[in-house]
């Protein structure tokens, strides 16, 4: 094997954290290499060092045998390194073509030749299998389409090393397929693709080799994945065996707690109705854009409803006001943790108690002792990994942020219905199992739980019943005995002729 991209003895420390400790591995030319590990294992840090966004304390990166000394992302870019981050970096008010040519507009004397630009970019996009109109504003694209544009950007600057950070987390199956084809093509052209993902099936499908990081150290390095099993990778990631990460167990179901009756709003035109019983976990499956999150936001009152009713334990609850919903016992862990969930710049404790502190704050005066006690209890019981309750929440990993949001609602004394939208998006295996366990315990306490998930194995693994949505309609319903990946997926796909994606059917 001829190494082309080499990490040698890379270490990086932040105040209080050793993010990377002496990590070394090499990747040959023309290969797709997986980089996996739990959140906080050091993947992001490694990518930031590769992209020049952070400097390593020790060690060096070699590309094609040359030691790279870059001081900025610009240097890395010139060295042929492109990183596609989970958070997209496009200018929403510009067109697709403008975004792709930003900084390199085809211009003469400062005047942009738009026709040339649109034609050229359009041709290149079609060439790599993307059908998006280059004249379209990025703001009008779906998240999945934006992700594809971001990847196209990396391809179009002719990078030698392309790192993709969780590229499929917001892609539909069809879009993922286009991406996978593109990756195969780039590989054939001799590029190196560093593929970071929590989806092990994708790793097995795409990657030649794979590196596992754990707690900032190299846990395993596989040059080939032929002899490696999924269980082995999981074990290497968590450092322990996880037999069944779902851990579902039967429960007694009670009376209907949540009844949604012909609910519709601005972004969910077709009225939706369903019910969830006490102790039941109802999964909502569908493709991105099927209307699941929109329905949940209507139930919680995050968006105003146009028609319909929501009742809890037989009593109708007011719509359109999250405060009233909380007081009536409905709570929501939103899909987009960063924008709708965590309060950036504030502590873990404040994020946990933001809603429930009103119960022990007579006359609006904070009770610091009670607040600290509540926060400490949840940090312990939910195993939230944080140096202290005073830590700014943005410094926590995604899984731990999700636990904080769950803790926020568990600290409310009288929750009846818990809605969790994408409970484990971007979350590592270990934290996933802990979050599922929390959901089971809550269901056992008699809550009705609604889980929205785009991960078919997850929604089948944890739900008692699954409702499938497609293009804004409730399409089908399955009880646990009837679960099958083919049936659920068939109900979720708008166009029956589309083949189910390989990543969900193993």
């Amino acid at each position, binding site marked *: 094997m001829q190494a082309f991209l080499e990490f040698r003895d890379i270490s990086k420390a*932040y*105040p209080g*954290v050793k*993010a990377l400790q002496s990590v070394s591995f090499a990747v040959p030319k023309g290969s797709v290499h997986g980089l996996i590990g739990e959140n906080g294992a050091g993947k*992001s*840090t490694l*990518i*930031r060092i590769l992209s020049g966004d*952070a400097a390593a304390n020790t060690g060096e990166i070699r590309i094609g045998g040359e030691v790279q000394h870059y001081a900025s992302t610009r240097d890395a870019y010139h060295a042929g390194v492109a990183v596609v981050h989970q958070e997209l970096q496009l200018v929403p008010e510009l067109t697709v073509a403008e975004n792709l040519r930003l900084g390199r507009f085809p211009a003469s004397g400062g005047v942009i030749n738009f026709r040339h630009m649109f034609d050229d970019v359009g041709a290149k996009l079609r060439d790599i299998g993307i059908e998006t109109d280059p004249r379209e504003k990025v703001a009008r694209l779906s998240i999945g389409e934006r992700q594809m544009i971001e990847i196209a950007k990396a391809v179009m600057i002719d990078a030698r090393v392309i790192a993709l950070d969780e590229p499929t987390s917001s892609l539909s199956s069809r879009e993922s397929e286009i991406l996978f084809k593109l990756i195969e093509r780039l590989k054939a052209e001799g590029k190196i693709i560093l593929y970071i993902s929590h989806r092990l099936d994708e790793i097995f499908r795409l990657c030649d080799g794979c590196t596992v990081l754990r707690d900032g150290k190299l846990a395993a390095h596989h040059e080939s994945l032929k002899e490696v099993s999924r269980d082995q990778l999981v074990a290497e990631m968590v450092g322990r065996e996880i037999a069944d990460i779902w851990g579902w167990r039967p429960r007694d179901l009670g009376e209907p707690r949540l009844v949604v009756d012909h609910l519709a709003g601005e972004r969910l035109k077709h009225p939706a109705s369903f019910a969830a019983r006490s102790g039941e976990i109802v999964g909502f499956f569908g493709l991105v854009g099927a209307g699941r999150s929109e329905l949940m936001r209507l139930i*919680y009152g*995050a968006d105003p409803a146009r028609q319909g009713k929501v009742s809890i334990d037989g009593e109708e609850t007011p719509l359109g006001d*999250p*405060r009233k919903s*909380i007081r009536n016992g409905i709570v*929501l862990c*939103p899909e987009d943790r960063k*924008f*709708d*969930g*965590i*309060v*950036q*710049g*504030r502590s873990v404790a*404040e994020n946990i108690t*933001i*809603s429930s*502190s*009103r119960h022990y*704050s007579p006359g*609006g*005066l*904070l009770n610091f002792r009670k607040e600290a006690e509540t926060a400490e209890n949840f940090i312990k019981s939910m195993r939230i990994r944080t140096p202290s309750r005073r830590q700014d929440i943005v*410094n926590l990993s995604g899984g731990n942020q999700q636990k904080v949001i769950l803790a*926020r609602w568990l600290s409310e004394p009288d929750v009846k219905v818990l809605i969790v939208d994408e409970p484990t998006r971007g979350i590592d295996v270990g934290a996933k199992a802990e979050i599922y366990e929390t959901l089971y315990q809550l269901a056992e306490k008699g809550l009705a739980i609604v889980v929205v998930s785009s991960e078919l194995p997850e929604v089948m693994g944890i739900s008692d019943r699954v409702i499938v949505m497609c293009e804004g309609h409730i399409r089908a319903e399955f009880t646990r005995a009837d679960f099958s990946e083919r049936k659920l997926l068939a109900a979720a796909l708008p166009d029956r002729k589309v083949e189910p994606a390989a990543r969900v059917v193993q």
Partner: protein
Amino acid sequence: MTQSLKRILLGDWGLVVLFIVAMLVVSLLVPNFMTQRNMLGLLQSVVTIGIVACTMMFCLASRDFDLSVGSIVAFTGMVAVMASNATGSILLGLLAALACGTFVGFLNGTVIAKLKINALITTLATMQIVRGLALISSDGRAVGINDPGFYQLALSRFLGVPTPIWVMAVAFAIFGFLLNRTVFGRNTLAIGGNPEASRLAGVNVDWMRIWIFTLQGLVCAVAGILLASRITSGQPNAAIGLELAVISACVLGGVSLAGGRAAMTGVIVGVLIIGVAENVMNLLNIQAFYQYVVRGVILLIAVLLDNLRSRALGRRG
């Protein structure tokens, strides 16, 4: 050595430490600085900025902005004087001023929260409307105070310290308490940190914003009354540019314009820095024109320091 120096300067108390060092240096170098008389004068000079900074801190911390404070201060000063003159009762005059200030603040808050109009634009509009009202009501001229009792508001002393300074100190205490110890303060910072997440977590964001702006109006009225008393008249052109001085003081004190971060001690230090800089330049007989330059430079340095501090805290991926 340089490491520990860096740690002190970029730590939470960096600004306070710098301020104390600057005070020591100034008191050694500038004659007449560390006298009781000069100190009281210095504090008197920052009363308006200091009082208004209390609520501006809440405004900025919740990711809003208020440009109308200078106008409200001038307008409520006018109202206090004219209503006192008209009714013959200082108390009625003061109440009228407080009511007017509160009303303008409430209007700001309602337009911003309910009609969803950007705070910058809304208060830019009310800044001009209210200044216009102040000019219209007095026909553009200063209005003298009839009842000399009105002067006593600014002239009277308690324990040898002028009343306005006490008012400022009390405002610092009240709003410091409000920020750190109450749900109101907590929610203000939460809204600044992430308004949408706060709303979904059950914070009544609209209600909070209306209250913050209403308080801002009320506090401006207090400052306006004290200012009118000190300058012994209602001046329609008073407090021009106050909004910028107040925002500077807040930013100097580490209040983040992006919201979510604020501390009363920081704001107090910010206010004092502005006061000291002006005072020292006066004592050294430096022409007033230079003061603008110095103020701007101080602001830039403070922001730079803040930037270095956030970077030192480090971002983790």
